[in-house]
């Protein structure tokens, strides 16, 4: 049985606690029914507040929250048909796994027999049957998460809201439970809204990634778009995987720009300017770390408009499938190249080596 349309629309959503600063500042977003949406941002960016407003645990100062075509502002969580999974899971410590999951049915006045039948089905689905009589204190973190998920899902909500659901788990379990969440979402077929500050978690899980900063949405879209085509420096740096160069434009060519920085002038960078860039503009350029090729300084300049920035190797980290090489290309800023493991070990570099960091024109993008 489908529990009804679970598409969410946030319109001009604002939240202020003190009437002066907005914790959430004019958020507009559409989340289609049955999507897995991740809100990503550092702590204090307002992502949890948005989640709590969708859940009905907090009221927006201004704006509308529309779920399934109906404005739900002012309604109780039950009337919204949303369910929330809390960061610490908030399992009731005095109730067994079975009674925790049955809680929502109990307060709806279902008889013990009736609710236990529904709970047993749910426990089978999330593989908790043999833990039915345990108390939350005697469960592992992963088991607790499954109980919390089952407890929220038993009400057949149309939207499930998850507040940093994986933060209480250790690294290995986090990856396993991530898959579990995705599996549950597919099985239940309902909208999941998930709040996290871990970019890996967001891009691994989400159909839609929403990157937030200071109460505002910076960028939203499919995981790959946000990761590969960040709209600005903030998103690029938050999601990682990109090097960002900034500077003042000195010359504009068809396949390159010449920019200058306080420390270094006349940097020739290959890029197809995908929007109007004028001389004198201050711009940010992004290049993916895995698009950077490192060459020995002795092997000559690469041709064809490619960029070649002389750099010294600051540190090298082995990462298994690739090697992370940290360079001093831009003073005081991170500049990193991901070199495929096999390529790296054909001719390994050492810390202190002087190299050319190169990329071809099509690989760099001008950020907003």
């Amino acid at each position, binding site marked *: 049985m489908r529990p009804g349309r679970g598409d969410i629309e946030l319109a001009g959503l604002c939240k202020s606690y003190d009437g002066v600063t907005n914790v959430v500042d004019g958020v507009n977003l559409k989340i289609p029914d049955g999507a897995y949406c991740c809100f990503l941002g550092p702590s204090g960016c307002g992502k949890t507040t948005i989640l709590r407003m969708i859940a009905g645990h907090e009221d927006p100062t201004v704006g509308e929250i529309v779920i399934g075509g109906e404005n739900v502002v002012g309604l109780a969580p039950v009337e919204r048909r949303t*369910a929330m999974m809390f960061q*610490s899971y908030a399992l009731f410590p005095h109730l067994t796994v079975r009674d925790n999951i049955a809680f929502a049915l109990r307060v709806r006045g279902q008889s013990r027999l009736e609710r236990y039948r529904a709970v047993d089905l749910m426990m089978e689905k999330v593989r908790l049957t043999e833990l039915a009589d345990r108390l939350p204190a005697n469960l592992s973190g992963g088991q607790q998460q499954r109980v919390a998920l089952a407890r929220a899902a038993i009400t057949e909500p149309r939207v499930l809201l998850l507040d940093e659901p994986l933060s209480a788990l250790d690294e290995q379990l986090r990856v396993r439970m991530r898959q579990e969440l995705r599996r549950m979402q597919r099985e239940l077929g309902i909208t999941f809204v998930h709040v996290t500050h871990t970019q890996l978690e967001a891009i691994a899980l989400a159909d839609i990634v929403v990157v937030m900063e200071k109460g505002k949405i910076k960028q939203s879209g499919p995981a790959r778009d946000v990761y590969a085509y960040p709209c600005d420096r903030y998103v690029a740096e938050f999601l990682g995987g990109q090097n960002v160069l900034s500077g003042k434009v000195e010359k504009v060519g068809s396949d390159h720009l010449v920019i200058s920085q306080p420390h270094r002038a006349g940097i020739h960078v290959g890029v197809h300017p995908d929007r109007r860039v004028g001389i004198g503009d201050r711009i940010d350029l992004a290049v993916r770390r895995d698009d950077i090729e490192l060459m020995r300084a002795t092997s000559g300049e690469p041709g064809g408009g490619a960029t070649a920035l002389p750099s010294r190797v600051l540190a090298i980290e082995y990462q298994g499938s690739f090697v992370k090489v940290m360079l001093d290309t831009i003073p005081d800023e991170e500049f990193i190249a991901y070199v495929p493991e096999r390529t790296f070990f054909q001719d390994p570099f050492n810390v202190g080596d002087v190299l050319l960091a190169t990329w071809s024109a099509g690989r760099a993008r001008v950020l907003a």
Partner: protein
Amino acid sequence: MTAVLERLDVPMVKSRRHAAAPRSDRRPWTFYALATVFTLYVAALYGPMICIYILSFQDVRGGLVFPMKGHSLHWFVDLFTQVRTGDVKGSFDRSIKLAVLVTVITLVVSFMAGLAFRRRFFGDMFVFYLMIGSLVAPGLVLGIGIGLLFQWLGINASWYTSALGAQLSWTLPFGVLVMFAVMSRFDSAWQEAARDLGASRWQTIRLVVIPILAPGLVAVALFGFTLSYDEFARSLQTAGSLNTLPLEIWSMTLNVTSPSLYALGTVTTIVSFVAIGVSIGAIVLINRRRGTGPASH
């Protein structure tokens, strides 16, 4: 040469032995010194009380001092049957009733205060200091004040009005402070989760808040009961014409010169221990049903 080597070797051997057995079996002398101090402390604390309990089991010939003269339950019977020893039965009855009343009010008010004080509200610090004020005010003075107030208002002082109020001025702050400690471990996400799952406010209190706080509430009740049961200073001027048990014991010390006074001490101690035992038993039972030991949380 070898002698020198041997001598050099000695500290090394010693240190190696130390490393192998870092905790020696021998206790330092400070352990014995502190143990002696503690033993003396316990003896000074419980010795006098134990003397009274022992002396209460004498027979008819018994006096107020050692040596013990025979052993029987004579003075316990005497306590509840003889009129000349005072109204022990009546005052005992009143004290229990009063303690139960105080316990219930303390429990309910402390619970609600504990919930209320999780958030700031207008005048919260004022209310808090007012409460601490009544805790540190000298009991006797506070009792006299309440007695005077009742007289001025033309209301007769009695154990269930003025004495009840006087005792609450003592038990409530205690109860609320204990409740603060209990509430510090209460995660408000539990309440939100209950609301999220569709529980009404009352269902949340009944099915989530009270069961989770139960061990703490038992502790508050225990405080209320024992503080009221042996309250003296505040009750002295407020109990009216009928005495509570501590007042009765006090008046007996002035005119009764038989071991029945000691028997009374034994009986009241037993009642206190029963109250404590029941409370601790309840807490242990709750924690065991919850699968957590008293230490783990």
